[in-house]
């Protein structure tokens, strides 16, 4: 078989394949739910109800979407420049560690100064954590996929060490968890009485900011140019390696914001299980969003709804929550295929 580019795809060509991809991933999930002994209509009903059925459910979905917007943006920014950052998980924990180090009483500043300080340091630290693999890539040609992946394991062990050593809560009854943040380091709620913190607001602002950078600044243009064709970009006089390093700082910083927002907004302290793989799920979010910063918000809400819904569905219908992960993995694979089909015709020879 052979792929032929389509110069002027029709509207149907551009819309139908992605729709079929999403539908197919639902269909596969329905099939798997039936194998597990569930009624697919009931299962999906429970997922939707669990994600959107009540005020509590909607707030839970928004809270769950918050870290995913940050990690999704981190991945989207990096992937656009063809910097394959699979290490958002480690960068997220870096942000969380910085938040705990600065926010548990070490710096006695008022909230108006302390929170910006934590954000700046967390973003820098997360960026630097990705800078190492990025430098190895630009200087030595070491594939960043493997190094960022390995960094995840190393950094999680480091967090485990911190939580059993220097950062361990003396009042924690022996549990590996950090002390609680002082109240000045906590992100306030957006509306009093509603369980939704400002992390969500920051995530939306970040998405808008990335969109502006991408659309209206030289850096955004350079990042896209490097991603589309590094050789051509170099020929056009774009400093390719510095652009990759700037992308790394931005991407790592965004992922670190996810850790900051989870600790300062939601949990109030750091534990080993702060993130159930938000860094990896960020890849799915970014791909579903076609790497568009505003699309990331929509995709993160969709993914969060499926996760929150699947949790409550699992309790009610007895179908394992891993159904949500399968749905997202199939959606990821089928969407990239669908996007290809919108642009190419498959010919048999």
């Amino acid at each position, binding site marked *: 078989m052979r792929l032929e580019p389509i110069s002027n795809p029709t509207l149907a060509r551009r819309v139908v394949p992605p729709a079929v991809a999403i539908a197919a991933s639902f269909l596969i999930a329905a099939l798997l739910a039936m194998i*597990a002994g569930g009624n697919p209509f009931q299962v999906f009903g429970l997922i939707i109800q669990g994600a959107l059925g009540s005020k509590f459910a909607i707030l839970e979905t928004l809270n769950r979407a918050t870290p995913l917007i940050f990690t999704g943006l981190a991945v989207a920014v990096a992937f656009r420049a063809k910097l*394959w950052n699979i290490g958002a998980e480690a960068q997220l924990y870096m942000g969380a560690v910085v938040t705990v180090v600065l926010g548990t009483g070490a710096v006695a500043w008022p909230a108006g100064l302390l929170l910006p300080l934590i954000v700046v340091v967390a973003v820098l630290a997360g960026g630097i954590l990705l800078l190492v693999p990025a430098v190895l890539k630009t200087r030595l040609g070491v594939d960043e*996929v493997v190094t960022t992946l390995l960094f995840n394991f190393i950094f999680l062990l480091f967090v485990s060490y911190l939580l059993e050593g220097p950062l361990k809560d003396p009042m924690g009854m022996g549990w590996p968890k950090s002390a609680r943040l002082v109240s000045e380091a906590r992100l306030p709620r957006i509306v009093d009485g509603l369980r939704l913190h400002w992390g969500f607001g920051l995530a939306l602002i970040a998405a808008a900011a990335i969109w502006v950078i991408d659309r209206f600044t030289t850096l955004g243009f350079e990042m896209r140019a490097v991603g589309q064709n590094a050789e051509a970009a170099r020929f056009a006089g774009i400093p390719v390696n510095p652009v990759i390093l700037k992308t790394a700082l931005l991407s790592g910083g965004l992922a670190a914001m996810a850790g900051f927002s989870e600790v300062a907004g939601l949990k109030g302290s750091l534990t080993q299980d702060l993130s159930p793989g938000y860094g990896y799920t960020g890849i799915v979010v970014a791909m579903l969003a076609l790497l568009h910063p505003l699309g990331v918000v929509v995709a993160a809400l969709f993914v969060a709804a499926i996760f929150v819904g699947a949790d409550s569905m699992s309790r009610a219908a007895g179908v394992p929550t*891993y159904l949500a992960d399968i749905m997202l993995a199939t959606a990821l694979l089928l969407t*990239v295929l669908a996007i290809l089909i919108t642009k190419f015709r498959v010919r048999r020879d």
Partner: protein
Amino acid sequence: MDVIEILMSASFWAAAIRIASPLIFATLGELVCERAGVLNLGIEGIMVAGAFAGWIAVWAGLPLWGGVGVAMVAGMGFGALHGVLSVLFGLSQHVVGVGITLLATSLTFYTYRVALPEVSTPPKIEAFQVYEIPILSKIPVIGPALFAQTPLTYLAFGLAGALAWGLYRTPLGLAIRAVGESPASVAAQGLSVAALRMGAVIFGSGLMAVGGAFLTMSAFDSFFFDMVNGRGWICIALVVFGAWRPGKALLGAILFAAFDAFQIRLQQTGIGAHVPYQIFLMMPYILSILALVLMSRRASVPAALMVPFNKGER
């Protein structure tokens, strides 16, 4: 127990070879894929799927070698999916690989929960037993290390030899290496680039799954969720470290495993009491990164690695 004593003990080398075995299978699998020009990041998930498939098949009543076969077929299934998306459709190998890992892992965990609901400790199987090769296993140090292992370990070593021969001494091996260097010239020879790459990815993925199955069927006798724990990613580093050659990859895996066995023993010495155990657990991952950095200058990457081939395009 001090360092010299560790290095001289037969049990240390036996452990090193045991730890190396799953890495050898998976590294060789990845090597075949990459020699044909396909980076297979599905490796981590495929190992999880293989570990589970082999174990559950034996638990359900199949003989041990039947379980290995089931694991291999499961791995080949995911390999076929990877091949269709990355070879036939030429999609980004990074995205497809990560997607396959997510899919294989979640599908495995889902199947586990469906097959064994309400189980707190997974059931055990009768795993592969050590088979001592007569006479040879009586050689001091080397004997217990190399010739008192389970049959799967012998298979891993045999496989490395067979692959070295296959890749460098047969027409098919030449075609596979060529398709990873210059697919256009392979197509000009009248061979199918797609078929060669598909075959390599499917076969390689089968080997990765057997590597996973080694964990549940030989190293241990049960399945745990975090069993593979990054071994797949380490194998990708080992392929680079081995400069894409089966023999060097085998040595790399053994060297790496020896280091891993060494750090486990070091934890029990006086040094272990002063250093946090997490530092020891980090060593394999740090070592992998160091290996990548060290080899980066010298490594001979297949020229067409990660470059999709679309017939008729120039």
